[in-house]
């Protein structure tokens, strides 16, 4: 006697018709979360580490100043001189009154340079700053 295998009447296989929807959803998430890197960083630096750090909520307000290992300073897309910082930051401050200046400074920089930058920022009246640091484990 031959046994007949019992088969479920329903078709096997996962319906794939909703796949594009799912992927669209993922896509939308990434599109919203993306900030395209708008500027290239020319200086190399290692950020210091700290424990008591906070997140900056509003990314649109941030303006970066990079200071590299060799003491070069970059604002936006260009390497600038120390004496130019005041003018540049003043213009930014006029355009965006509550600008937050994020200082991304290499950890082996001398405080002299940092102080000079801070003095320039004070003169430009861009006084909200943030010492960028990584989370210490």
């Amino acid at each position, binding site marked *: 006697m031959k046994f007949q295998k019992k088969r479920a009447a329903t078709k096997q296989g996962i319906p*794939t*018709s909703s*796949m*594009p929807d799912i*992927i*669209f959803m*993922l*896509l939308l998430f*990434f*599109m919203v*979360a*993306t*900030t*395209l*890197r708008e500027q290239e960083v020319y200086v190399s630096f290692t950020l*210091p580490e*700290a*424990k*008591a*750090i*906070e*997140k*900056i909520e509003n*990314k649109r307000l*941030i303006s970066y100043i990079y200071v590299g290992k060799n003491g070069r300073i970059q604002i936006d897309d260009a390497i600038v001189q120390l004496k130019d910082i005041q003018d540049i930051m003043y213009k930014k401050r006029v355009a965006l009154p509550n600008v*937050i200046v*994020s*200082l991304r*400074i*290499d*950890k*082996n*920089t*001398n*405080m*002299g340079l*940092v*102080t000079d930058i*801070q*003095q320039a*920022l*004070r*003169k430009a*009246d861009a*006084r*909200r*700053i*943030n*010492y*960028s*640091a*990584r*989370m210490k484990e």
Partner: protein
Amino acid sequence: MIHLKRRKREGAGEFSTASMADITFLLLLFFLVSTVIDVDTGIGLTLPEYIPPEEQELAPLSKDRLAALLINENGDVLLNGEIIAIPQIQDNLIERIKSKIDLPKNKKLVVSIKTDRKTNYNLYIQALDEVKSAYFKVREEYALSHWGKKVKDLTDDQIKELREKIPIIISIAEPEQVK
């Protein structure tokens, strides 16, 4: 009579959606690769207003309000004239901050940080971090004992009160002229 038969194509007016998933995958991949979910973290601070040296006035500050931190180029730290190590700053300050919680606004602790021009930036951040940690710890403790909640769960009014009770006052000393 000739019967004209309309020719009907089968499956007309439809296009296949099978490749839709592939196209979306491609887009998804592009955004995945180009995304930088990079939240800027760091230690926030508000610099004092710039006042030209001629117009500066020295505001007297009583000794018990002031915690003066000096960091020299060798990495030695002085807190009110005593040499201490950076990890000790936190414990030292916590007591002093706590003792001033119930004092009026103009008697709270002021932490002043002063560095040499050749001090390492990393050291300065470590010291600043310690000071901030001390304040955060006191705030956390205060919130827990008064409202039984963590700081991040407080309501806006409570946060306002907390900030009034334990304000973070960090003063970056005016740099000295280059010798």
